[in-house]
């Protein structure tokens, strides 16, 4: 460590470059840490909520969202394997006159205590209540027990009345007490199960049964014995499965965000590379001298790596602290899912995770070491005798980089793109992006040499000088262009990907929302349905030309997997109403057609023409895959059946949504009011497609808000890198500027020379960045998004935005070069050349 002042002291000497590398690593680590900390907090809170809801259950019986026959409860409760069974009916409802939603659990209070004691309702002592009423408060059909957090959100207290929708009808309930064991859930309410079945028209139905097994019986054995008793589409699952599914659902989004943060870190590593490469060149005689007086090659390599590692260490420690602060702000501002909608309604608490923080510190150190590696290798390989004589310029112009390695990395990224996902993650895609980015940076000197050959040596003196310099020392431009290439590539890739997705979602919304008006039975997920009578009433409303109803449900196709959405609505035999991917496959007479989303194609391997079995109304039915449609709304997959087929197969004639086409000349607002009035209670919500589209795109933009922040960060880092590189280069060329001034060049001409050189270097970086960014965008669209979220999209390049961005960056880079030159020219020209006399 005695040599520490020799090397680490040089970091202080070149403060600006060190600070920029440090800032880039701080930013990369802070963003990654923040995403990690927020998601960890959200998952912990989600898991805690789930554990409260599932209590000490060993197994849970789960089925479609619409529920299953309660007779199953009696069969399971009587089994010798089961010590206690607790039936549950979950419904979501909303408070009349507000947007507050409530998660109502209908529970059997006699079975509850042994399985989910945390949900035990505690009646409050209310004025004017008899002792008998107080004792049986939990069984009263109009009583509701709210968690303390829900009481706060709804601003009610025990004794108050709460009006909610039961289906499409109003229902008045009394807040009879609280749930001491689940005080923190802001949407949780508990009622007697019989009351929920009655009020919400779910007589004879359950959505879950929590099972406690007899002592000594393991869940695996019990599952094998009990599974044959279950109807189709109903499965036995471990309570923690839902936690894992939630983690999986948000994982791809989280990993993508983390990798975007990692890209900021990679950009930071490139800045370290750029700063170290220039620093090593500027110190080449100093380093050669150290070698001459006895510093071993490996010692030099080690200490130059240590410089990068120190910047990485300091940056990552500050980044971890900043990341936690950022996470705190993000939790407050966007919630536990950073606006993506996975964990709505949760109030996660941030916790410091030593292991995760340690990993991020290591990543920061790794970025610093990676950035310092090649310059350190180059410096250690230089012969000291030559380096002692060479000038800064000649050392820089001799840099040829590693074009061979660059080409290998670029070529190797192609086969990585066809790798299947590993653990559901597009690892091949990420490696390909890394290979492309690194390969192109290593290949940059070749690009600069290529450009140098076509730049003419004509025109005014600054132009000739700039062109001559590019020809003589393309390596110098390449070093300055490294940061630009990395940040432009990242920004261009993200811009193309986000623009493609947004454009595709916009087109998709237009395809799936062809009607004039859309109606639904309330906002809450399973609260309201349109009865058959109401459907007839709606069809008969004056001004309505045509109505298409949709039934929503969810199916569980396999144990341990998240539910798949089922949509039943009128679909023609060729599926022309759907946003199809590829062509439809004709289905034979007598067969039932099902249209699957891309997620089911990817996750279950279903193909058009395949026969598949679906659990509908407790039985398995065989259907035939007629085609694949694009569904940006449901990540875990969705199925679409023709409504007539669904009704024939299930006997269920209810619906939740309706698409309404107006008669010619009908007034949309008037018809909307008439439709709402048909519902009677105000439970029906009618919107125009434009409103749904605007709301959807708003949600889209909110989801990508974090990526915009990352893009802005990348641009700032890239620009800062350019400024730092030019400052270092200009400082190394003080004597050259002094000589040029002696020869008669004005300050203005030298400024023009620098601006030209800045534009050329930035131009090389921008050209390379846009090319590589386009390739990375393709990988993001075709590999990363497809494997992470299972949706395809059409390529849409935002040419105007990219050109404006490129032009602005080139201008700013030229400005940075001129400013850096001015700084270097502040010294008197005579003094600047003194060392040469």
């Amino acid at each position, binding site marked *: 460590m005695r040599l520490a*002042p020799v090397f680490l002291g040089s970091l*202080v000497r070149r403060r600006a470059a060190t600070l920029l590398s440090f800032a880039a690593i701080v930013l990369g680590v802070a963003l990654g840490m923040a995403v990690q900390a927020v998601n960890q907090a959200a998952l912990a809170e989600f898991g805690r909520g789930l554990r409260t809801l599932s209590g000490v259950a060993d197994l849970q019986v789960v089925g479609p969202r619409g529920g299953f026959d309660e007779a199953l409860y009696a069969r399971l409760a009587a089994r010798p394997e089961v010590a206690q069974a607790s039936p549950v009916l979950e419904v979501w409802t909303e408070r009349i006159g507000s947007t507050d939603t409530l998660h109502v659990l209908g529970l059997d209070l006699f079975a509850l205590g042994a399985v989910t004691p945390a949900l035990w309702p505690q009646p409050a002592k209310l004025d004017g209540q008899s002792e008998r009423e107080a004792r049986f408060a939990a069984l009263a059909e109009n009583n509701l027990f709210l968690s303390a957090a829900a009481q706060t959100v709804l601003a009610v207290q025990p004794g108050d009345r709460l009006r909610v929708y039961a289906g499409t009808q109003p229902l008045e309930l009394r807040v009879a007490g609280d749930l001491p064991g689940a005080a923190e859930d802001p949407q949780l309410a508990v009622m007697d199960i019989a009351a929920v079945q009655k009020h919400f028209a779910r007589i004879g139905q359950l959505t879950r049964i929590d099972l406690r097994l007899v002592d000594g019986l393991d869940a695996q054995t019990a599952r094998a014995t009990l599974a044959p008793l279950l109807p189709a589409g109903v499965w036995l699952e471990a309570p923690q499965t839902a936690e894992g599914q939630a983690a999986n659902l948000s994982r791809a989004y989280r990993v993508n965000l983390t990798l975007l943060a990692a890209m900021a870190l990679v950009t930071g590593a490139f800045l370290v590379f750029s700063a170290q490469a220039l620093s090593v060149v500027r110190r080449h005689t100093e380093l050669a001298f150290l070698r*001459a007086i006895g510093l071993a*090659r490996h010692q030099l390599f080690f200490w130059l790596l240590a410089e990068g590692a120190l910047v990485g260490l300091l940056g990552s420690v500050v980044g971890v602290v900043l990341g936690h602060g950022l996470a705190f702000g993000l939790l407050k501002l966007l919630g536990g899912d950073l606006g993506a909608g996975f964990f709505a309604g949760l109030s996660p608490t941030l916790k410091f995770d030593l292991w995760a923080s340690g990993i991020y510190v290591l990543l920061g150190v790794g970025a610093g070491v990676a950035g310092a590696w090649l310059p350190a290798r180059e410096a250690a390989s230089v012969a000291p005798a030559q380096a002692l004589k060479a000038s800064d310029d000649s050392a820089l112009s001799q840099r040829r980089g590693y074009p061979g390695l660059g080409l290998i990395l670029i070529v190797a990224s192609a086969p990585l793109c066809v790798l299947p996902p590993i653990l559901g993650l597009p690892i091949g895609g990420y490696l390909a992006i890394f290979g492309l980015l690194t390969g192109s940076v290593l290949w940059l000197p070749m690009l600069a040499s290529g450009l140098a050959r076509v730049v003419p040596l004509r025109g005014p003196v600054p132009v000739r000088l700039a062109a001559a310099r590019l020809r003589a020392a393309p390596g110098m431009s390449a070093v300055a262009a490294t940061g630009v290439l990395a940040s432009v590539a990242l920004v261009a890739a993200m811009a193309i990907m986000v623009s493609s997705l947004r454009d595709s979602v916009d087109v998709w919304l237009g395809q799936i929302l062809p009607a004039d008006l859309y109606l639904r039975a309330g906002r809450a997920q399973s609260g309201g349905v349109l009865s058959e009578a109401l459907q007839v009433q709606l069809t008969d409303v004056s001004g309505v030309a045509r109505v298409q109803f949709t039934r929503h449900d969810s199916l569980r196709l396999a144990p341990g997997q998240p539910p798949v959405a089922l949509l039943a609505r009128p679909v023609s035999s060729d599926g022309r109403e759907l946003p199809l991917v590829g062509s439809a496959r004709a289905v034979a007479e007598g067969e039932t057609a099902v249209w699957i989303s891309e997620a089911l194609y990817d996750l279950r391997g279903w193909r058009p023409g395949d026969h598949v079995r679906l659990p509908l109304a407790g039985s398995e039915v065989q259907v035939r895959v007629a085609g694949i449609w694009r569904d940006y709304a449901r990540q875990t997959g969705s199925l679409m059946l023709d409504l007539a087929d669904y009704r024939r197969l299930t006997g269920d004639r209810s619906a939740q949504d309706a698409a309404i086409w107006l008669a010619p000349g009908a007034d949309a607002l008037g018809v909307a009011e008439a439709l709402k009035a048909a519902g009677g209670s105000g439970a029906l919500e009618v919107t125009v497609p434009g409103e749904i589209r605007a709301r959807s795109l708003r949600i889209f933009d909110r989801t990508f808000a974090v990526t915009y922040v990352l893009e802005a960060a990348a641009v700032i880092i890239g620009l800062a890198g350019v400024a730092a590189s030019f400052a270092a280069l200009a400082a190394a060329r003080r004597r050259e500027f002094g000589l040029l001034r002696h020869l008669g060049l004005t300050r203005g001409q030298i400024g023009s020379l620098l601006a030209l050189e800045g534009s050329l270097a930035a131009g090389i970086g921008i050209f390379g960045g846009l090319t590589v960014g386009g390739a990375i965008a393709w990988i993001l669209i075709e590999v990363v998004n497809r494997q992470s979220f299972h949706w395809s999209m059409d390529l849409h390049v935002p040419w105007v935005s990219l050109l404006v961005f490129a032009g602005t960056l080139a201008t700013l880079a030229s400005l940075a070069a001129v400013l850096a030159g001015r700084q270097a020219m502040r010294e008197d020209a005579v003094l600047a050349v003194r060392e040469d006399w």
Partner: protein
Amino acid sequence: MLEISNLYRQFNNRPVLKAISLRLEPGEYVAITGESGVGKSTLLNVIAGLNRPDRGRLALDGEDYAALGEEALTRLRRDKLGFVFQAFHILPHLTLRQNVTLPLWLKGQGGPWADRQAECLLDAVGLADRAESWPRELSGGEMQRVAIARALVHSPRLVLADEPTGNLDPTNAARVLRLLGERIRTAGSMGILVTHSPDAARSADRVLQLTPEGLRG
């Protein structure tokens, strides 16, 4: 003792050093002069182990190091050689004391003893009161005196000086040359001064001329 006999070195098939022989006793200080391009710096680099001779013997205190590997040559330079350059090569982010202590750090010797050694040498070159100063605060002559202190701090057997007065005015040059000669002789080391300047060469015990045919006494 330094023994060089029949040393050859060529670059791009062009002979640069031919039949070079030289013998130096402890305490002896010689100057090598010659026309530009005759190979003075190459000879110094070969003696320093920075370039390898194509053939010939090169021994320090009886140990032939012409064919040693890179690691061994690095150790040799660290332990037995001292350098003074025309461009000083004083590290700008180290204080004078730290710059002088640097060769001791490389040998794994630090702490108060090393600091005392550096102070002794700085005292010897007349800069004891500037030990905590930064290189930017020094004149060219002062920087070269620091370089001399640094070249001698680890008691090398051989000091190699390549145009050490090339960047100095005559007064400072004379002072630096006197100091260099005195310190080499006092320490019992051997010294080789490579220079263009006849005045500088006269400060050595004997002057040799490098010609395309070899060293002439």
